[in-house]
């Protein structure tokens, strides 16, 4: 265990150092990323205003709160992508990683976790500017802050597991972009990224309960800006843990098959 803690700390340190090196680039990346929620925000607040100030139980201020927290959750959701796995295999980087006495997934989790600390710091002034422009309404309890702080990391881990599983398809075949795009389409609809899940048709909401997507987007946001009870907050976090455990389990099984397929084509 101590070995892993040491490895995680060292990798996170490297990641923070690298991101600081590129802080300006990171900032522009984040600013670019804000375009998407700002469009959603403008559309939904306009609709809410036209409907007398509320749509689907969301006021203009509640929409603003949802999409401003969205920007942080989205950044926390950035993980090593399947495209990255494709590149890693093609360029021979995976071979180098496989020569280390530590699973490559640990490297990814630790590296992106380190990145998150820089992201959170960079996000704070952006959130302040967005709040000044869109005037969100927050009614936050301490319990919500605690669960939210855990849930954004839960979301990060679930998405890491999911995208790593997807990335492992590249052990069998290259050119899997089409499959990735299908996944990202499903995620957009079923996660709460496009609109809060409560605005979706009931059957989509029901379906999303059985899938991991909403626990990576909608739940962490709702944990902070929604009106969830303590039981709902902790059971939601419990669902995140369940999906993380499922992801680890599947990852272990598929990895054992995938590694036998590895042909080290890139070196």
């Amino acid at each position: 265990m101590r070995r892993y803690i040491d490895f995680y700390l060292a990798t996170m340190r490297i990641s923070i150092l690298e991101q600081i090196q590129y802080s300006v680039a990171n900032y522009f990346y984040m600013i670019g990323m804000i375009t998407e929620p700002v469009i959603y925000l403008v559309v939904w607040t306009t609709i809410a205003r036209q409907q007398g100030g509320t749509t689907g139980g969301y006021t203009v201020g509640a929409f603003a709160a949802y999409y401003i927290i969205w920007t942080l959750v989205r950044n926390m959701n950035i993980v090593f992508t399947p495209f990255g796995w494709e590149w890693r295999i093609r360029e021979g980087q995976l071979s180098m990683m496989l020569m280390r006495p530590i699973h490559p997934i640990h490297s990814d989790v630790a590296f992106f976790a380190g990145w998150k600390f820089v992201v959170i710091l960079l996000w704070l002034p952006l959130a302040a500017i967005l709040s000044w422009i869109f005037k969100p309404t927050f009614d936050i309890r301490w319990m919500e802050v605690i669960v939210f702080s855990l849930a954004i990391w839960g979301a990060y881990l679930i998405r890491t597991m999911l995208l790593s599983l997807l990335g492992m398809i590249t052990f069998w075949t290259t050119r899997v972009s089409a499959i990735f795009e299908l996944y990202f389409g499903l995620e957009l609809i079923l996660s709460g990224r496009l609109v809060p899940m409560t605005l979706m048709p009931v059957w989509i909401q029901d379906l999303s309960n059985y899938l991991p997507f909403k626990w990576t987007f909608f739940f962490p946001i709702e944990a902070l800006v929604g009106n969830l009870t303590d039981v709902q907050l902790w059971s939601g976090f419990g669902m995140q843990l369940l999906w993380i455990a499922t992801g680890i389990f599947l990852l272990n099984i598929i990895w054992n098959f995938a590694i036998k397929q590895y042909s080290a084509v890139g070196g």
Partner: protein
Amino acid sequence: MTPTISVSNLSKHYKVPERDGGMKAAVISLFNRKYRTVKAVDDVSFNIEAGEVVGFLGPNGAGKTTTLKVLSGLLHPTSGMVNVLGYEPTKRSHDYLRQVALVMGNRNQLSWDLPAIDSFELQRAIYSLPVSEFKKTRDDFIDLLELKDLVNKPIRNLSLGERMKMEIVGALLHRPKVLFLDEPTIGLDVTMQRRIRAFIKEYNQRWGATVLLTSHYMADVEALCKRVIVIHHGHTLFDGELNQLVTQFSSFKTLGITLPDPEVDLSQYGEVLTRDGARVTLRVPKAKTSQVTANLLSDLQVDDLTVEDTPIDDVIDSVFTSTKAAK
């Protein structure tokens, strides 16, 4: 004594899709895909004892890198047995990976944006090295490769040779007992090649490490390896001492002659390889070397005469050429 590396009847075959060119063949291949089996390594066997430095030679596509990848646990063999340090590499046990290193001349593992000293710290954590031992090894290696002024510069600001030296330090910080080196000097200038060779030699002598090296630069092989394994089309062609390879595969000697008259025709004595002013190199059958030498000295006024074995590059080339011709 159990060999450090033991390979018996190793084969690694790949199934690759194959089709004719053109639209029609492309459409047909959608429904009726044809495959061809490529035998990258076919029934290769060898043993390497602890502390040996062995050159693994062969032309591109001979199966060298595939063999190294199987030995380092990256690839699963199609058949055969592989054992390194008592471990089965394909199981990729962490204990095994802690004792080996694979260095590929065209691959890097250090962070591009950070000074190497930061990446070395990550290597310490990966291999759980005790801090004092890690610092001592790191500083020793930095001294040996004269990197003191470079370790604080971001890797991206270093030259190719400097980067390669850093990569080697990073790969050996955990002091592996077995080194798989795949073209470690590729693309480097002569001075840098020499430095890296000297370092590998020093590492081998100091730590008693076993080294399996592939290189297209015969200078690497001559400087480091007493023994070579030659592989071609996945098969072993030769396994023995380097000088034995020259004896077995070279039936010629090279004579270097300096004459006062550069215009003299020497074709009757042997094959003229080069002519540079008064200096001429001749290739003569090994069995006739003494007779030709005597004739030259008696027939002509000779300022200087040297007799050398065929350069190792030419020997290797003739090995591969003769195999190709025989196929």
